[in-house]
């Protein structure tokens, strides 16, 4: 793998390097010269690699998952849009002030069917990241998303959102243009949108900035994505005044896909290729596509849009855990 290696990936890169070395032209020539057959050794190491990878990736800690969710090679919204949809036609601007490139969107074809797709886009290189504010949208981005959602509603297109952000922008400009209002507005309006909404959290689901695109009828998370009320670093800073304890905070926050699933916040978890989505984006995209089609099929069967919206409301209404004490009984709601 190119670039930074996480601690948990070290056992994998060790075996990978061994294989690389055995496959090098120099070693091959040496082996040929000495009459040794390396292929058996390589096959053995490749099996070993598979075993190590399964072991490592099935046992990732919440903090390791956070790192993987933020992996610089992880496929972003535009990668999936390219791989899943046909004829994506990007639309720009909120028709109020600006075009926020932290959020991209437009109509596209999903298996012969027009849909509207909206996603958060982090950016691959330094220049693109700056242009897209590292995927942290300002008010203008959330308002562009709402504009596209309204367009989808008018043309009876299902809405598909891809969530991947560390959080909404929190700078002076964000405050001046009302990023809080823009998020709140989306929460309300998406909950009432008269078209099916399918949400997939593909990387980081960071707080209100993620939620601003995450109200829907079916919510999925990729296996190694995260979804959290606050970043582990932020949580550690508040709890222990020590950002380096992010790993402990990640554990406390219950931010993994399986946590989110058991808390009733998401509907399903989409398995990632061994080693994470970035090792095989094509397979990952196929998994997402299959899931989108299944969800769409399910949502198509709603007898009316009113029932769809009421079901969406009840889905949100169930969120939360509390105890309700009545004089005679004690009952708990595990929403």
């Amino acid at each position, binding site marked *: 793998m190119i670039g930074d290696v996480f601690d948990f990936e070290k056992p994998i890169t060790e075996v990978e390097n061994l294989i690389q070395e055995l496959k090098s032209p120099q070693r091959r020539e040496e082996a040929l010269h000495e009459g040794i057959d390396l292929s058996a050794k390589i096959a053995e190491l490749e099996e070993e690699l598979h075993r190590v990878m399964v072991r490592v990736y099935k046992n990732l800690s919440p903090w390791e998952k956070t790192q993987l969710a933020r992996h610089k090679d992880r496929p972003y919204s535009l990668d999936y849009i390219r791989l899943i949809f046909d004829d994506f036609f990007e639309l720009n601007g909120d028709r109020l002030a600006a075009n926020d490139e932290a959020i991209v969107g437009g109509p596209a074809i999903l298996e012969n069917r027009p849909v509207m797709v909206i996603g958060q886009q982090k950016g691959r290189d330094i220049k693109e990241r700056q242009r897209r504010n590292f995927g942290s949208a300002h008010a203008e981005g959330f308002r562009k998303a709402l504009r596209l959602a309204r367009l989808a509603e008018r043309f009876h297109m299902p809405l598909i959102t891809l969530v991947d952000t560390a959080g909404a922008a929190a700078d002076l400009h964000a405050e001046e243009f009302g990023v809080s209002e823009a998020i709140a507005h989306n929460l309300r309006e998406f909950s009432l949108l008269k078209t099916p909404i399918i949400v997939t959290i593909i990387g980081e689901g960071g707080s209100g900035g993620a*939620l601003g695109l995450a109200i829907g009828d079916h919510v999925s998370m990729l296996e190694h994505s995260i979804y*959290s009320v606050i970043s582990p670093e932020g949580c550690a800073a508040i709890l222990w005044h020590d950002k380096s304890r992010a790993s402990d905070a990640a554990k406390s926050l219950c931010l993994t896909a399986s946590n989110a699933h058991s808390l009733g916040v998401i509907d399903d978890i989409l398995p990632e290729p061994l080693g994470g989505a970035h090792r095989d984006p094509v397979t990952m995209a196929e998994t997402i596509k299959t899931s989108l089609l299944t969800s769409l099929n399910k949502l198509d069967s709603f007898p009316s849009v009113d029932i769809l919206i009421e079901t969406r409301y009840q889905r949100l209404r169930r*969120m939360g855990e509390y105890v309700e004490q009545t004089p005679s009984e004690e009952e708990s709601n595990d929403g």
Partner: protein
Amino acid sequence: MVRSGWFSRKPTGNKSSTDIPAGIVTKCQRCNEILFVRDFERNSKVCTKCGFHHKLSAYERIEITVDEGSFQPLNEDIISRDPLNFIEYPAKLEKARTNTKLSEAIVTGTAFIDNKPVVIGVSDFGYMGGSMGSVVGERISRAMEYGLAHRLPVILFTASGGARMQEGLLSLMQMAKTSSSAGKLREAGILFVCVLTDPTTGGVYASYACLGDVILAEPGAIVGFAGRRVGNQDTGVNLPDDFQTSEFQAEHGMVDRILPRKEMRTALALLLKLFDGGRHNDR
């Protein structure tokens, strides 16, 4: 307009400099003026010298807002669990209950303002910073649904640091839950008024607090998305002195009116009159 320096908080560290007899006099948190408790309380905890609006508890707020004796609490029997087994959460809840004598960080119920019936909810910053977890979200949604069922306007006073970290993702979801309930009110033509008090930030400001049909605020309240420090670190831009105050938000079109505490009840009564009791009936 009075601006620079007006809202910047001065540290209140040097407590030892004056020995204040407890219960008789108190000190303004901003201008350090020594005030008689009696005058201070009579002025609803607004400094008689500099006009600084100190925080009120939920019941202090209810007392100065609604018709005397008209408040009837709702859903006080919904109480918090510790769904994530979060470090020290049960102890923090216990401490908050003891200190505030409240069962959670928001008090909701029905009341009359100038003889007009309303559903009212008031956050209490003293209870874990007024933070929104499952119970706060549930009480807000139920208050809104009560307004929906009985066709009563809903008035919420906010005072919250944001979503409650100790309930993780479930707290985040309360933003969605309360906002979708606000959507129901809107569709039903029921008036929803938010009054932003010090402080209203994070996940609360980025959800129901921003969704009032009318948004009022107290002067000098901290109102904003993320902390001032966060903004500063991220951009290196010098922030205006009034960054993330109610005045800043009003200047940028996010707040209808900033009203001093002693005028708030009258303003709410007038709004109820102007909006014909806060619900239109042609549905």
